[in-house]
């Protein structure tokens, strides 16, 4: 009996260890060894009658290793996994298309190395150090979220690596003298601008409560939007942050009601955003409009049921408002990459659900690295960095250009966001529609949100 108990306990512990090992740190397959350069062909004896033909460039294959961490577990899991899915879709497509051919005959293909950061900043620093020092990653992609990216960016910069940041909107990381960071997302300080512009049209007398998660990204967004609200004549009647692990939003919602606010702007990430949306719905406090960061942009958000109705979100990209080659042509900008429709169809075929802006961000991170290598005609990090600094192009994801000043190097200065809102279609099903800016809107904003 005693021996069998020991056996059961041992088996349980082993099962747990194996599962946690599988779940928490599943590095991708080791990057393929770079293909050995082709042996130079023995020079053939020149024929006496014919002059020697110019030598064809020798085709060699080079594998560029891209390193990043992803949050397979923890608070950032939902959005992070989507970002990684987008990135791997790009990587598979570019490799299947034969890679990038440089003028010296080198064919550049891509591989990646990744680890689970468990949504933990300290782990991010360890893992990015490992990606650089042990895995010899040539280029880096950021983890998801501003907080984790802030940790990763320190390591990247210390080691002189180029890091494309996606899923990270906070402005501060670009104002510390970095030279290797390049931001894809619209900066946090501009996140809610389109929403405020829309509110000005809808209800200039709205009283606004700003309630946000006490993390770097959401704090940056809140601090960025407050002056803009005041410039536009809105009264901010409440401003408050909450801890990331807050589950009971009842007291906060009561406080919003007590403040007399008619509009809520806030949120942070997926877990707290869903809890806050539900608390607002449960209490029916008479808000005319509620905007939350990040969570409503996810395809899982309608699992909240009617609590999702009317909740708005800024989106870095929506298929219904995807950017086009014609738009690039009108603006005199260079176009690069697939159309939004092709990207969405390929993603849905690969992963079975429609892409969110997190997916588009992950994909575009790879896409602009590809473009920078093409422009640089090299994989040399300094040449790629220079190409990124000079970049000014349009993709399905939108315009991309980086600030090259010393004060805010790498900050995204061209990309614009849209405002999406969960509304019900004719069949009574929830769908996310574009409500602002007016030139790309597909629906009128639902304002005020109907009482349930």
């Amino acid at each position, binding site marked *: 009996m005693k021996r069998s108990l020991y056996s059961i306990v041992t088996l*349980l512990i082993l*099962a747990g260890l194996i599962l946690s090992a599988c779940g928490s740190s599943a590095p991708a397959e080791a990057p393929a060894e770079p293909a050995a350069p082709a042996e130079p062909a023995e020079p053939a004896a020149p024929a006496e009658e014919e002059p020697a033909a110019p030598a064809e460039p020798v085709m060699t294959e080079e594998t560029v290793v891209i390193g990043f961490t992803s949050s397979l577990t923890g608070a950032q899991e939902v959005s992070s996994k989507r970002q990684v899915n987008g990135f791997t879709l790009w990587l598979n497509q570019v490799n299947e298309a034969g890679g990038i051919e440089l003028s010296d005959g080198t064919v550049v293909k891509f591989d990646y190395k990744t680890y689970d950061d468990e949504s933990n900043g300290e782990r991010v620093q360890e893992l990015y150090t490992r990606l650089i020092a042990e895995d010899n990653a040539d280029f880096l992609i950021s983890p998801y979220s501003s907080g984790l990216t802030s940790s990763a960016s320190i390591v990247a910069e210390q080691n002189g690596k180029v890091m494309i940041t996606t899923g990270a909107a906070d402005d501060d990381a670009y104002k510390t003298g970095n030279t290797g960071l390049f931001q894809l997302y619209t900066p946090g300080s501009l996140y809610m601008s389109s929403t405020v512009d829309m509110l000005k049209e809808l209800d200039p007398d709205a009283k606004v409560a700003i309630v946000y998660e006490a993390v770097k990204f959401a704090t940056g967004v809140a601090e960025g939007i407050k002056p803009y609200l005041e410039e536009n004549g809105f009264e901010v009647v409440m401003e408050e942050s909450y801890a990331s692990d807050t589950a009971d939003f009842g007291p906060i919602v009561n406080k919003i009601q007590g403040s007399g606010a008619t509009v809520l702007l806030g949120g942070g990430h997926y877990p707290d955003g869903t809890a806050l949306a539900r608390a607002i719905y449960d209490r029916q406090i008479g808000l005319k409009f509620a905007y939350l960061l990040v969570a409503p942009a996810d395809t899982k958000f309608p699992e*909240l049921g009617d609590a999702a109705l009317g909740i708005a979100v800024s989106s870095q990209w929506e298929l219904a408002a995807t950017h086009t080659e014609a738009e690039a042509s009108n603006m005199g900008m260079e176009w690069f990459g697939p159309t939004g429709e092709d990207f969405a169809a390929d993603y849905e075929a690969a992963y079975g659900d429609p892409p969110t802006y997190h997916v588009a961000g992950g994909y575009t991170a790879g896409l602009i690295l590809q473009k920078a290598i093409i422009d640089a005609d090299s994989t040399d990090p300094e040449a790629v960095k220079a190409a990124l600094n000079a970049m000014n192009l349009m993709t399905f994801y939108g315009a991309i250009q980086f600030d090259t000043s010393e004060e805010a190097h790498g900050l995204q200065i061209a990309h614009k966001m849209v405002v999406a809102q969960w509304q019900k279609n004719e069949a009574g099903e929830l769908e996310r529609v574009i409500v602002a800016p007016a030139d790309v809107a597909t629906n009128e904003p639902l304002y005020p949100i109907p009482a349930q």
Partner: protein
Amino acid sequence: MQQLNLLLTSLPDGILLGFVYGVAAMGLTLIWGVMNVINLAHGPIIALGMFSTFFIYIRFEINPYLGLIPVAIAGLLLGVVIYFTAVHRVINAPHLSSLLATFSVNMIIIGLGTAAFTTSPYNVDFNMGSFKLGATTILGTRVIAAVIAFLFTAGLYLFLYRTRPGKYIRAVTNNRDAAELMGVPSTRILALSFGLGTMLAAVSGALIATFFPFSILSGGGYELKSFVIGVLGGLGNPIGALFGGLILGVLEGVIPAFMNTSWVPVIEFGLFVVILLVRPNGLFGAKK
């Protein structure tokens, strides 16, 4: 005046939630009281209770309150299994051994839960309506959860004080050696106590899932609250835990009326330290 209104608005919410916190803490403190084991698997078991409500309601479309019956039975059995596999061998060993044993169970449940459910939040779209009490909106789910929590507390009280197994539990709590000399089957009673503790954790999780979204990691926060409540109510005093839960619930409802919500955990854990320093037996006395 506005703060007073806010206080009155949030107070009922805090009280109702406090009952559920109380049930969660009762599970932890019962196990500590009977066998001096700090059950670090308490949080994941609360999370499993949450998931059971999700599957019972979303997948099988059974009312979550009816679903509490199988949840309670499964919780009891799970506790007995955990006791015999992980705790029984180290019950007389130094506290560190039992702490590590239950921590291992904690890791196993979280590992299995992460593999099965990921760490994504889940939501039970369940609504029992609401009603106005002055300026306060009272949610039906919270009222029913509080009533059920109260019934579980009363049931536990009656079980401990009016039934033979309950009396055995109290006897083992007071002096295990003496109880064994009197013919009390202490091993079975310890297993039953552990089962009751996990049952209460699972039930509290199942109730919490009716009003908050959750993930497999959500139990950790409630486990920490259970420690605070256990210290407030007196470690090893299950009935004191209910009052401790009410105090914590009220604090969570009232503090945001006067200061930023971010201060809630600071004050909660500050109180935890103060009680440990000035009244280590808790406000309602530790186990007797």
